[in-house]
């Protein structure tokens, strides 16, 4: 599904990613853990195609296709979804309107017909109920005045509706209390499927109690420095990142 080779990326002349190698096979959930400043969020932005980063070396293959030069909206249509750490607000645009615009834009890009309104409403209703997203929330402007939990639930709702092949979850647990974390994790787990890969980026191990990964990678100073099973997360929880920070520098 996702194959990253020797990826180097810099912003304003400062190198953040210094040779990432990462393979995420179809249907697997991989976690990336690491200290602050290790380049985790940069990796998520670079995978989603955010402008402003210079990819100085390496390649990103998605479904066997090189996407380093592909614009962000085309990557989205190909099935890459990023759940933002800080979802953005768009005043005056109802959440419902935004969802419909996004779904239809992707369908259009893939050469599919646009959804009819009843079909769209039905899909939203089904997914929203599971995530405790109320009709009232859907009518409010996108993320404006939403609590931290509401924003994250809204991200997962978008993921459910857009049905991506690869979902990247950037610090999805940040700002969530324990109940909200459970709702969001249940939502994510419900979307696990043999056709879908996930990359879960987190600083803390607690999210991985809820979303149990197949593989855990440790990232430090712009490289993957260690990979292992779910037990690696527990080890990090006990010992912290101190070893890696020292080793990488």
């Amino acid at each position, binding site marked *: 599904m996702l194959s990253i080779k020797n990826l180097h990326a810099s912003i304003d002349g400062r190198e953040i990613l210094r040779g990432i190698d990462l393979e995420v096979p179809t249907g697997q959930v991989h976690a990336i853990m690491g200290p602050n400043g290790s380049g985790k969020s940069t990796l998520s932005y670079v995978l989603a195609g955010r402008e402003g980063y210079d990819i100085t070396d390496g390649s990103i293959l998605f479904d066997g296709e090189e996407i380093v030069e592909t614009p962000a909206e085309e990557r989205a*249509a190909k099935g890459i979804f990023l759940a933002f750490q800080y979802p953005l607000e768009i005043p005056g*645009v109802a959440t419902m309107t935004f969802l419909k615009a*996004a779904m239809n834009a992707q369908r259009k890009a893939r050469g599919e017909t646009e959804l009819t309104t009843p079909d769209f409403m039905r899909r939203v209703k089904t997914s929203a109920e599971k995530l405790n997203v109320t009709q009232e929330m859907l009518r409010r402007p996108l993320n404006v005045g939403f609590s931290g939990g509401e924003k994250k639930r809204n991200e997962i709702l978008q993921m459910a509706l857009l049905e991506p092949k690869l979902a990247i979850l950037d610090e999805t647990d940040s700002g969530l209390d324990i109940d909200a974390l459970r709702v969001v994790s249940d939502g994510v787990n419900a979307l696990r499927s043999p056709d879908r890969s996930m990359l879960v980026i987190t600083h803390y191990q607690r999210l991985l109690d809820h979303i149990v990964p197949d593989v855990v990678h440790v990232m430090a100073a712009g490289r993957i420095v260690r990979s292992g099973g779910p037990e690696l997360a527990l080890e990090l929880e006990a010992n912290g990142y101190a070893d890696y920070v020292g080793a990488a520098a």
Partner: protein
Amino acid sequence: MPAVQETVDQVRRIDVDQYKYGFVTEIESEKAPKGLSEEVIRFISAKKNEPDWMLEWRLDAYRRWLTMTEPTWARVHYPKIDFEELYYYAAPKSTPGPKSLDEVDPELLATYEKLGIPLREREILAGVEGAGDRRVAVDAVFDSVSVVTTFKEELKKAGVIFCSISEAIREYPDLVRKYLGSVVPTTDNFYATLNSAVFSDGSFVYVPEGVRCPMELSTYFRINERNTGQFERTLIIADKGAYVSYLEGCTAPQRDENQLHAAVVELVALDDAEIKYSTVQNWYPGDKDGKGGIYNFVTKRGDCRGPRSKISWTQVETGSAITWKYPSCILRGDDSQGEFYSIAVSNGYQQVDSGTKMIHLGKNTKSRIISKGIAAGRSDNTYRGLVSAHRKASGARNFTNCDSLLIGDQCGAHTVPYIESKNASAVFEHEATTSKIADDQLFYCLQRGLSSEEAVALIVNGFVKDVIQQLPMEFAVEAQKLISISLEGSVG
């Protein structure tokens, strides 16, 4: 209402221009000599078969104009206008236009295409020579002449007068004499005074006491609209307890050989009356280098003359090279209300200096200002507004909200509010924000699959929503589309 709506739709679909010979008699190929003089004004007045009092009125304005100088306080820049180089009375045929669509700015044609305007109408809008004269079969369900007639009859039944101002001067001299210049006096300002001297034509509306005008009045219905030229004059009177909603303009960009447009609009609302005036202005903004666009220097003012009267201005301004206008309300009657809702979009090299004046004279008068300025490209967008309370305006209230949205880093947005209160009980609130479409906001939309143009349209439409809601339904959808088109190519 459905029947009325159907009629409205039908008439809008049919281009009314081809009937101009059926209704307008005073247009001939002759034109007045270049420049302005008493002689030219006499010529204009004679051409329009005006009574003596009207001629005197024009001449007074002209003499006054000679003593005035052009104002320079607006934040707009343009080469000096030579008023002796202009024609003040010319039938449209006499100024040469493009011979065919091949000679028209391709950008303009692309916009017509996006708006879905039929080919023949594109020619008319672009001012292609002779386009409006050609007779084309109308394959509508019914003959459009009868639509217009039905429309006129329905208004007549209600007692509403809706005609050209030239016709009103001849047919309803008492009404015109009583109200013309009573809101914007001939001495008001340089451009309004010039307009008073040489105004070509425009609309006249009178809604009698207690009558609710049965339909939205629109310049679409005015057969001779195309020929009103650069100095349009509009007068709307709502008598006691009357209501009228008036739509001006057109979403399709219109080209015009006259670069300077100095219109005057006067609204009078008597006791308990309400006037709603909506404008969509989309004059040619010039080519990509900013050349050839229209200068739109307009004076629009409403007088809430009676107690409990209400005047509401809603405007969507996307066109013109330079827009310089301040639709205002004089809140004279006690408990009267004024409203101003505005969206001003500027792109390319456009310059906008627009806003409103709310003059509180009566007791417990209220006003509300919602202004949304959107600047893109290398444009400059200024909100300039005055809210004042007279000594006697106890309990006056105003709420102002001015938001500016910047797209890109070469445009400018400015807010210049003036607040004057001579009454201690007046409460004025002012809110202003300036924001930029942030890169991360844009990236968020792109990540969800929207193109950058779709993303900007979505964000902008969210930004202007409060004002769009004030527009009559049929205008609102078109206005949204228009705003998106105006901003195309402004990012990425």
